């Protein structure tokens, strides 16, 4: 019963919430759609936290997404035991990288007073959900291993059943508890997405990678400006 709610109904609530609140926030309060970077407040620990976390989480996100888009090709890749190991070890390393990065980011938030000052409740919630999601993901990867293979056989048909509006919760009914928690956690993450700084994913400055370089040249007379400022004081 509870599974029908969590895996059958909740995903649709999440999708509606996600689309409606995201669009509304972008239209009404567009300037809040940002990563709220704290690089100016602290940059050294940020580098060692943010970079590993983002590299890991982006690899994992696309891993899950590609498995969903082309499950057959993933199965064909995994047909060779060596390729299976290469894929699984890469994914595990990405998971560990994301965990190390996130733990560092959390410690950084806790130890710097100026960062605590700019940390909102939404940030705290997001850190908690992300940490839980990465921890359950690593648990599943290690204890119920070769997820890259069984994901295509068990989870992908479930996700597809949601898309065709015939949710097949039975596919998940007998899976180990941690797998279910990980799937439910993913829906929670999507649900809180529009209320948090996760919104920055949607406005990632991707064209930055290939746009023309811009050279900034100041052409105001700084000496004159200083003179003006000095005159105003006296």
């Amino acid at each position: 019963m509870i599974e029908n709610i969590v895996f059958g109904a909740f995903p649709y609530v999440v999708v509606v919430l996600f689309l409606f609140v995201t669009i509304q926030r972008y239209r009404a309060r567009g300037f809040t759609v940002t990563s709220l970077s704290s690089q100016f407040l602290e940059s050294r620990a940020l580098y060692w936290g943010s970079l590993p976390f983002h590299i890991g989480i982006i690899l994992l996100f696309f891993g899950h997404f590609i498995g969903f888009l082309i499950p057959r090709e993933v199965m064909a890749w995994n047909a060779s035991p060596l390729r299976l190991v290469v894929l699984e070890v890469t994914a595990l390393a990405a998971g560990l990288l994301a965990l190390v990065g996130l733990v560092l980011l959390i410690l950084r938030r806790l130890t710097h007073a100026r960062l605590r000052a700019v940390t909102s409740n939404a940030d705290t919630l997001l850190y908690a959900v992300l940490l839980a999601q990465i921890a359950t993901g690593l648990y599943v990867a290690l204890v119920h291993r070769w997820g890259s293979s069984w994901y295509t056989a068990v989870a992908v048909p479930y996700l597809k059943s949601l898309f065709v509006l015939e949710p097949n919760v039975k596919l998940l009914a007998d899976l180990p508890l941690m797998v279910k928690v990980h799937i439910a956690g993913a829906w929670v993450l999507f649900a809180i997405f529009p209320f948090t700084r996760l919104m920055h994913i949607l406005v990632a400055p991707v064209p930055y990678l290939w746009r023309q370089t811009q050279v900034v040249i100041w052409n105001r007379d700084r000496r004159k400006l200083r003179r003006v400022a000095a005159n105003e004081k006296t």
Partner: protein
Amino acid sequence: MFGKKCSSCHSLGEGDRTGPDLVGVTKRRDTAWIKKFVRTPGAVIDSGDAAAKEMLDKFKGVRMPDQDLKDDELDAILAYLADCTAKGMCKIATGKAKHANEATPAEVAFGRALFEGSKRLTNGGPACISCHNVRGAGILGGGTLSKDLTHAYPRIGDPGLSSALESTPYPVMNQVFAKRALTSAEAFALKAYLADVSKDGTSPTADHNFLYLGIIGLFVALGAIGVGAAGRLRGVRQSIVKRGAP
């Protein structure tokens, strides 16, 4: 129905297997209890039911998987069981599967290729290694979502394994293989491979090589990030503050 769903674990008049002989079950227990137990054996056992507890002890803690049966299917099976009880025994059609002893080395090798996935299953089902481990499978072993199958052959027995492979009565497998059943040649090759693996009676050893490889990968990535840190632009202020410090 019985041959497809039940006969991997239950006989009709040939004695107990993984589960009890079902001749006489319709006299032993009342119909409502059987229906409830067949659909949700785990829940009945956990509810502290005395008869279920007694069976669990008798069959060495092996729990029957939940059976997803419609009302008319369950009624049909019960009618069949009542009929067999009246006759004293029934012959089950699936009993005629070839014994694993008759497999050629080529068939065992074919079974291994199917298990590991290097040969795809005809109807598109996922390879066994995705969820199951067997001693010596793959490079770091098989999956651990589900049971280790190294000793599945002696555990379920020859005819039982045949019917388990062909009808996949376990809950998750039932969903996954519903429209992608194994062919009988594939089922036989897999049975032959599992029989071959079980000849060495020792348990497979667990290692942590997968975790260690992941940790190596982690440090390689952190090393690359460290190299990136060396050539990174820094604010002017940081170095001034450092120089100014006593």
